[in-house]
């Protein structure tokens, strides 16, 4: 039995709910036991660190402190989100490397009656424990419906294999964990040189043109290599490439259709789950056609908005903006 404390992260029950659903669908075949950290809070993503250092690390460390308190028969925290994983792991590492930081953070935690001794926990990413604890053999054994014929590019993103102070990954630049796992599911894995290149991160919010460029690099190279879909381990990567692909197409005048799914979704499918059990259908760039190649039929749901032609007018439900205004007021 593999038991872990789970730090889901904010996106897992909203933009990346497909990730959560598919994760839930593979715990049983793999005998995974995930215990959610109680009352966890946001890790601050990449935003809080740039505002104020000690609060940012205190925000992260509250989660570690809660986890350490809760932990009984495991000291490993698993985060499925790369940014959350990085923040938790980095905080734990820096609090040791720079003892003054550790002391200050604990001073802050004390105000909430908490404390955290850096190094108490192991912070690991979901795919790390799947590949190295559960093991590829166990995964192979659980496969009922091999994904043979599905051409995928593995997209690891940047925050997972780097900076990797704990030396958990096979390589900083071209790690093979995701490739190996997808191969174990039977998929045709295409060598993807951009596997750890950046999806743009928060630039979709603050400098969309910059982000579109980065998304374009990833999607066009995947397309060039004949991929039917990209497979990711990170909610932010999924969000940027999926939700902003149309915008990117619009910006560059291109017409890419490159679905991107979470690796857990493919695991679920390979383990014989139905598409709707693993959150397939909520992606904006539909994976329907891609999955048809391996005989998985995705029931038609509402099609996502088609790529907008350049000269086409903007569909603009004015009513909605007002509605938004009200939502603002709630805050």
């Amino acid at each position: 039995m593999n038991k872990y404390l789970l730090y889901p992260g904010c996106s897992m029950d909203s933009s990346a709910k497909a990730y959560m659903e598919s994760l839930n669908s593979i715990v049983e075949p793999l005998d995974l036991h995930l215990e959610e950290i109680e009352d966890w809070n946001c890790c601050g993503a990449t935003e809080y660190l740039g505002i104020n250092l000690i609060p940012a690390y205190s925000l992260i460390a509250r989660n570690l402190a809660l986890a350490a308190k809760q932990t009984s028969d495991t000291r490993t925290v698993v985060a499925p989100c790369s940014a959350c994983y990085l923040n938790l792991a980095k905080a734990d590492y820096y609090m040791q490397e720079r003892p003054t930081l550790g002391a200050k953070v604990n001073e802050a935690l004390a105000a909430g009656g908490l404390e955290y001794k850096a190094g108490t926990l192991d912070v690991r990413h979901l795919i790390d424990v799947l590949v190295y604890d559960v093991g590829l053999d166990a995964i192979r054994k659980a496969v009922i419906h091999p994904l043979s014929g599905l051409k995928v590019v593995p997209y690891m993103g940047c925050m997972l294999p780097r900076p990797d102070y704990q030396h958990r990954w096979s390589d900083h630049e071209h790690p093979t964990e995701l490739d190996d796992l997808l191969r174990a599911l039977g998929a045709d894995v295409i060598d993807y040189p951009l596997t750890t290149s950046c999806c743009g991160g928060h630039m979709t919010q603050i400098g969309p043109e910059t982000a579109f460029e980065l998304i374009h690099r990833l999607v066009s190279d995947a397309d060039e290599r004949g991929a039917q879909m990209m497979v990711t381990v990170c909610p932010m990567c999924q969000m940027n490439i999926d939700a902003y692909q149309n915008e990117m197409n619009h910006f560059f005048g291109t017409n890419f259709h490159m679905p991107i799914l979470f690796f857990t979704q493919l695991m679920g499918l390979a383990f014989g789950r139905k598409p709707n059990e693993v959150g397939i259908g909520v992606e904006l760039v539909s994976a329907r056609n891609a999955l048809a190649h391996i005989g998985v039929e995705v029931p038609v749901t509402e099609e996502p908005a088609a790529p907008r032609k350049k000269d086409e007018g903007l569909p603009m439900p004015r009513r909605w903006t007002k509605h938004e205004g009200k939502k603002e007021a709630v805050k």
Partner: protein
Amino acid sequence: MTERVGVYVCHCGSNIAGTVDVVDVANWAAEKLGRQGVIIAREYKFMCSSLGQELIEKDIKELGLTRVVVAACSPHLHEKTFRTAAKNAGLNPYLVELASIREQVSWVHSDKAVATAKAKAVVSGAVSRVIENRPLEEIKVPINPNTLVVGGGIAGIQSALEIANAGFHVYLVEREPSIGGHMAQFDKTFPTLDCSACILTPRMVEAGTHPNITLLTWSEVTNVAGYVGNFHVTIKKKARFINEELCTGCGICQEKCPKKVIDDVYEAGLGYRKAVYTPFAQAVPNFPVMDKENCTYFIKGTCKACEKFCPTGAIDFNQQDEMLHIDVGNIVLATGYDLFDARRVSNYGYGRLPNVFTSLEFERLSNAAGPTSGNIVLRDGKTTPKSVGVIHCVGSRDKNFNNYCSVICCMQGLKFAHLVHERTGATVYNFYIDMRTAYKAYDEFYQRVLEEGTLFVRGKVAEVTNAARNEREKGKLIIQVEDTLAGKQRRIPVDMVILSSGLQPRKDAKEVGKMFGISCSMDGWFTEKHPKLDPVSTMTEGIYIVGCAQGPKDIPSSVAQGAAASARVLDKILQKEVALEPIKASVNKEMCSGCRICNGLCPFNAIAFIEDDKVTEINPALCQGCGTCVAACPAGAISGTGFSNEQIIAQIDGLLLRNLEVQEAV
């Protein structure tokens, strides 16, 4: 107390006197240390001058001094000077102590009162100690005139030839089938572009035929015992499966051998050889070796094509490894380097992207005797590149890999640029962090390469990728780099990338060092006795290091070191005997309880347990005098000359002024 001690305080111009009141120190010593035996204390401008030395010599003779303390500079500078002075005056040189009041006092403190007080304490410590000093005699050991040279690269060859030419015998041991080392793999040598084989081959032949050189290739040293002048060395002569007496080196066996193997050593993985092979045409000796791992007969039990065709019947499948035991007086280690494994820099794509080459691969590629007959082509074996990028500092000057500068990579990279330009006319880019061309005629070579139109980009390459972003980049390798002088990121598409990989210590350097009793630096290179003044000697007398085993260096420096070590060896041989510092540990058998605690402590194997007497003994010739066993002996049975317990304890007490009649506030 019967010792008569003289104390001499040096001004060293103003170096000491500027911060320490030397007159006060001398007066204080005469007054306060009188009961200890100080009968005279003087100060003088420069004690190390001939006048200063004469002063001491005169006092020894006239006042009958039995101990001398000189308060001056560090003992590492002038201990020998004053010991010699004492010897000249008839006093045993080991009855002199230096009290360092310059490096340890006047140069590092500024307050005169504080410095003077500390100087007094230091003098007091030296006086207490010197009284416990005992007269010692240098130890003389006869020297075996034979020499062992380990490693048959250019440094080892040079070293062996120098000694052999002087008329002494040399055993030259080489792990590979032929001598020649890395230099035999190169095409051209910078900065003169001499053909490497043309200048090296005559030396190899000379070494191979020299009457004073016993060449042992395909052989490895497995054990070293003994000490300077008297080393006992065991060498494993690996089975060649060729009878060297009968073999004429005709090469028919290689021709007939049906098994083709990738040659990872000589051809750097870029070419093939047979299972029975000489690594290259000019190999010395010219006997082939049989690669047991790959030979069809050894694997399947049938074949023997070589045996069938050998005209002299020299193939011998029953040959066994042979152990040779030789005695030598000196050992020169010329074990060379390994090339940095460029696969470790995964962002440069070596091993993943076919047209990324290492420096050694390119050497073979450009070598007329190499797998492409000197045609510079891509890995497809036919296409000539139109544009080439040479990346410097691969694996060097990088905390992720090797911290140090590999010295030769800049010049090597420039040489590659020149060769590519000359042979293919391709556009060449060189990417560097700092251009290091500091040696005779090296910078001129840089100028020449500039003139040829090589495009230099100052910036450490971030990555080499095949992920094209536009048509221009399609099908190319793209070098992404910040052009730091232009302040802009650039993406430069090229057909071929050459990694100017750094050098690193042999992967077994640590074990080899241990076997020969020498140490390695943090980076893994063998440590020299003194980085400037004794770069080819080691802390173990009689063991010398030359060439890249000591650190990255180019061919001229390797040759110079090879010759330098030979001069040191000849010096030793011609002295016929060697004087060893008498700082040694010895066991008082009466007190030894035979507990054997000390037995495992000596890295020089000087400590041996005598089963018959149930006591431990220390071989003074092997003992290096570190004193670890002295500190460890629970019975206090081991004592160390020069650094005895009595001396050190006396010095502690002296430094703490416990030796004064009346303790003073200092």
